[in-house]
């Protein structure tokens, strides 16, 4: 019994932390895809770019990976700015539906991936930091020992902080409210004296900017090589949809639900079923509540 409780507690703790990590990967997409309706399928590959920049700064100058991620953020903001400018001129300007951009982002995915191969090679890379490979242990009685790996804790804290910051920004500032409004009605926004393209451009750049820090967290948690990004396309889109399009806090909660589900399954039922369970949850939720767990209006998109 004690062993069971020990396993359960650990599974829950790891699940929550893992959820924070997933949230860090998904939060940018929650802005670009959830709020702005741009199907940025290259987001996971941008995360890998962020991971490699963190690796570069870490291995060259020993800069802490999280700090490296923060340093890279303005660069990613600029990258996002440029990507949106191209995307807008090629697709949105002519009123093409958002799915038209899919092929564009697939192409971008390949280009970034090859760029990474050329620059960094194909080997798996890891970073060094004091919190990697260490854990805090909370011991209760003689048989319960909850280990909290610092590497996941860092990811969790950063993810939660980023989610809260973005959430506050989107709800409390004029610009943030405009971001939330822009996918709902661009014309009405024009009538308020807002330039919706500018709003979308900056918001998209913000979403991409999160890939700088998200990528750093990624390489803190797991080893990275250029093609890893593809594996995470399904996960990040699933989490954003599960959380409800346009809901930043929903994305965090959905990520935590998936994290806990995967961790419980891995502990008690066999880890190889994890993807089936998390995507099963997604399917079940979509069947019962098509707007996602925390989405507001059904079929708005």
């Amino acid at each position: 019994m004690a062993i069971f409780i020990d396993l359960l507690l650990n599974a829950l703790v790891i699940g929550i932390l893992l959820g924070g990590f997933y949230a860090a990967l998904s939060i940018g997409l929650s802005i670009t895809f959830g709020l702005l309706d741009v199907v940025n399928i290259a987001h996971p590959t941008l995360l890998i770019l962020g991971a490699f920049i963190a690796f570069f700064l870490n291995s060259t100058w020993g800069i802490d990976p999280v700090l490296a991620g923060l340093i890279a953020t303005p660069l990613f903001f600029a990258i996002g700015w440029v990507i949106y400018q191209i995307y807008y001129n090629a697709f949105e300007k002519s009123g093409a539906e958002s799915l038209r951009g899919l092929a564009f982002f697939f192409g971008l995915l390949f280009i970034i991936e090859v760029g990474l191969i050329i620059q960094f090679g194909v080997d798996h890379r890891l970073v060094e930091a004091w919190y990697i490979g260490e854990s805090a242990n909370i011991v209760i009685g003689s048989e319960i020992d909850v280990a909290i790996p610092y590497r996941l804790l860092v990811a969790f804290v950063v993810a939660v902080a980023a989610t809260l910051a973005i959430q506050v920004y989107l709800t409390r500032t004029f610009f943030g409210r405009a971001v939330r409004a822009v996918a709902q009605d661009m014309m009405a926004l024009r009538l308020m004296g807002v330039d919706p393209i500018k709003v979308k451009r900056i918001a998209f750049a913000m979403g991409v900017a999160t890939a700088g820090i998200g990528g750093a967290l990624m390489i803190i948690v797991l080893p990275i090589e250029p093609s890893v990004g593809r594996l995470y396309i399904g996960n990040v889109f699933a989490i954003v949809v599960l959380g409800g399009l346009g809901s930043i806090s929903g994305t965090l909660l959905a990520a935590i639900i998936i994290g806990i589900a995967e961790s419980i399954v891995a502990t008690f039922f066999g880890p190889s079923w994890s993807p089936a369970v998390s995507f099963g949850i997604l399917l079940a939720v979509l069947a019962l509540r098509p707007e996602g767990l925390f989405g507001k209006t059904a079929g708005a998109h």
Partner: protein
Amino acid sequence: MTRILANRVRVWLLGGLMAAAFVFSAPLATTAEAQSKDPIKVGFSMALSGALAGGGQQSLVAIQLWAEDMNKKGGLLGRPVELVFYDDQTNPKNVPGIYSKLLDIDKVDLIVSGYGTNLIAPAMPIAIEREMTFMGLFGMNANAKWEYEKYFSILPAGPDPAVGFSEVWFQAVQKKFQPKTIAVIAADAEFAQNLKEGAVRNAKAFGMEIVYEENYNPKTPDFTPILRAANAKKPDAIYIASYPNGSAGLVRALAEVGTDAKAVGGGMVGLQFAGIMAGLGPMLNGIANYDFFVPEPTMNLYPGASDLIDRYQAKVKAENLKVDALGYYLVPWAYANVDILGQAVQAVGSLDQDAIADYIRDNEFTSVVGKVKFGKNGEWDRPRTLVVQYQDITNNDLSQFSKAGTRKIMLPADISTGELQPFNDLRK
């Protein structure tokens, strides 16, 4: 008028694109030096991008080194050696087309495989149909169903590779700790699953009870729950058959959660890679894993291998190649893959595929991977995997791994350089 002009521009753009595509697609010359005689072309596919590119890129450099060596020595059969290769993107689907192009368009004279079972298998029917001798690099039982008599495998795992791969590990662990219970963790992917199957059979043969046996999905980001679940069964040993991502993840989980098992490791692919070794550093201490070549003094058994590795490392440095900086894992094997074929061609004195295959089947070879003799289905007649234990790693400096002492050989006994120690004794 402007519209017509716009259309012209469009047509021009499209035309230009097509032209650009053609210019790019024009066959790029290989390392063709101006030599009078017709070269002997050696063709292969290689994973230069995608999930297995780490091994593929390393293998390519090794094969290029072999070609350089041959041409310095005056070539094969007095003709220069030329390599023809394409990137299979770690996607089996590209492989049949590549080998067909190699044989039908590029008219290569010899073929060897790409890296890994699922990239060897799709080339098999073509090799069989053309009756080509086919060397396979790190394929696991790739010829079991085909039973093709001209296939030869470069993987030192013996006639039954799945079992042979982990047999020494079980011997080493059994001898030292006599474990009664064992946990088996494996990645949900081809090579790891074969390793697991072999490990399960070995565990039974050695009388160990399997108390935990689970597979994990290759994209699992965190392994602590898996390790905890395995620990809960209190195994005496943990056999892990994993891919690079899982190997690194499990090593970190071992650092964070710990285990009471005495022996941990076995079939962890990736721990031999420079980037991962440097990244994990001291966390590797205590892991007992398979390996093929380590810079221990007793490895002189492999004539020329150290030299080859030195040249590889120098080449990587000099040309600033973005590949594995050390190259211990695959370089000797990828080299041997073409070297044995080359030796056979030289001995037979022609490119007669039947004669080449007969020669390879009937003779023992000495290459950079030591003495090689092939047996059933073209597998090695006896296994020669190493069991190494990571010891005395103090930091994340890559250079320590190119010196003796960090990966000591436990078995085979004749080249052993250390004693297997309980996992936890080597942790700080």
